């Protein structure tokens, strides 16, 4: 399964991902409530020791900025071998061999495993990150804007690589991105996130051809259109709310063109509008639409 999360910056996507990994920076962050179910276990309840076995082994993560995500004083080979040594019983030589194999897998000559990160370009660094993430064949790969820091041609290469390796390793992928094009290219299911909540969730088709939530509609409308020569892009009015001071009721209501009095109070529960398609909007509950 491939799932994409899309949303404004500040919508809480990356924080959710870090929450799954149990890596929310503390201070200032702390997970107060909720649960993360993975293979029937609640990851938030797991002791740190068991969580360490899951991190990098069963769930691994690719971060946004490849330039700063690799340790500058260790060779890339060491950094790949490190995760292998942690989660398998390989000897150091075997781990090194595995590191070279992984480098080849992501399209970097294995002989470069004794080079340091500063000797690689941004795209290659992200490939190394992918090699680290996939080295232990995880069940789940969380990619937090893996291509945002890369230029467009490299983006395409990296996405293609991720798609192929995912197929090869049978890994599930959660992709967090602002880029609807990237989602369309890789994902099966899409969750649109606003102010820390999933406001619409469905298959790629549900979201791209049958979007229902006013925010999702606004998000797609704001895409530049190559055939429309309008001077100004459409935008969603207003600003993303401050996460520490969210509006009451539907969190989107101050910006929503369809907002009514009822939207300002009470929690909005998700509504299942088809077998695969969920939307969190008051208008669907009342049967208005």
């Amino acid at each position, binding site marked *: 399964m491939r799932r994409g999360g899309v949303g404004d910056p500040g919508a809480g996507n990356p924080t959710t991902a870090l929450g799954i990994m149990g890596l929310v920076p503390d201070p200032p962050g702390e997970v107060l409530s909720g649960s993360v179910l993975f293979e029937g276990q609640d990851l938030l309840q797991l002791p740190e020791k068991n969580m360490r076995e899951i*991190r*990098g082994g069963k769930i691994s993560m690719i971060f946004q900025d490849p330039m700063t*995500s690799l340790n*500058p*004083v260790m060779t890339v080979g060491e950094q790949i071998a490190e995760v292998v040594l*942690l989660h398998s019983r390989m000897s150091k030589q075997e781990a090194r061999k595995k590191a070279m194999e992984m480098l080849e897998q992501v399209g970097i000559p294995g002989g470069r495993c004794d080079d*340091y990160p500063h000797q690689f370009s941004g795209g290659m660094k992200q490939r190394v*990150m992918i090699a*680290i993430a996939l080295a232990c064949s995880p069940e789940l790969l969380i990619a937090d804007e893996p291509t945002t820091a890369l230029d467009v041609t490299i983006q395409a290469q990296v996405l293609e690589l991720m798609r192929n390796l995912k197929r090869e390793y049978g890994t599930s992928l959660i992709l967090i991105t602002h880029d609807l094009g990237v989602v369309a290219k890789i994902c099966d299911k899409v969750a649109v996130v606003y102010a820390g909540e999933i406001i619409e969730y469905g298959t790629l088709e549900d979201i791209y051809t049958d979007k229902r939530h006013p925010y999702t509609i606004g998000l797609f409308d704001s895409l530049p259109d190559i055939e429309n020569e309008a001077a100004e892009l459409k935008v969603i009015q207003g600003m993303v709310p401050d996460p520490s001071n969210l509006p009451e009721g539907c969190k989107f209501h101050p910006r929503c063109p369809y907002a009514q009095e009822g939207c300002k109070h009470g929690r909005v529960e998700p509504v299942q509008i088809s077998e695969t398609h969920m939307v969190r909007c008051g208008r669907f509950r009342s049967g208005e639409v």
Partner: protein
Amino acid sequence: MLKYIIKRLLWIIPVLIGVTVIVFTILYFSPGDPAYLALGDNATPEAVEAYRVEMGINGTYWERLGRTLLGLLKGDLGISYRSRTPVLDELIVRFKVTFNISAWSIILGILLGIFFGIISALKQNTVWDSLATGCALFGISMPMFWQGLMLILIFSVWLGWLPASGYGDSWKQMVMPVIALGVNSSATIMRTTRSSMLEVMRQDYIRTAKAKGQSYWMVVLRHALRNAMIPIVTVIGLQLGVLLAGSIVTEAIFSVAGVGKYLVDSLNARDYAAVQGCVLLIAFVSAILNLIVDVIYTYIDPRMKTMYESAKVFHLPKKGAKSSV
């Protein structure tokens, strides 16, 4: 890399010549005449002249400077006016003492500094952090001679555990000089370690290491400390210089017969050849230590190595122009 080291070693030569010229000039113009000091105020002009010739301090400024530099090239630091023995021989004996104390001091300083620096960074804003930074502030603020005197007061006068002065009879004599010097450097090293670790622990690659499932202490020691070491090594290098200067004070307080005490005594006796020898030795040791620190950099930070090795690519010095290293 080898080429770089050789280049740096060659650069020590002009440094030493510069130091010699400066020290010689200062001493030349400083008041007090060693010949009268040695022979007494009532000495005859003939006796004074004979003494000057014997010690090589006759003639004009340029003659004497030339003689000093020529001697330096031959590895001859001149003759001590007081003992009438070669300064070099005196220095070698005393340097062993100073080296011994300084080495133990810096080891103590590094161990204490890095340990408490890490603790206080990891436990930022807790009681432990305040305690450690408080002690460091105390260590930096209190002058070394005062710390030395307090140590003597407490451990020799009140408790009677350690001998107040001397060197070489028992290891106990080394304890207080080493503590006085080492604690002082550890304070600076601790503060650098703390700030460096605090910064490194927030870096993205630390998050990557945690995401690999690495244990907390392995993340701290393998990933964070190795990166944090770059500024720490710089400070240790600087502390080595401070240590050499500090040994002058410490050796005087604890009456340790090292280079520092020799320098002070020679200065009081206007034994200029010896003073010059001491300063030269300290300059030489500092230069070597700096070189060692720079080489250590390349082992800690591979980016430095690339920089050194490709230094030529970035600034080609014009022919005949001096390049700065």
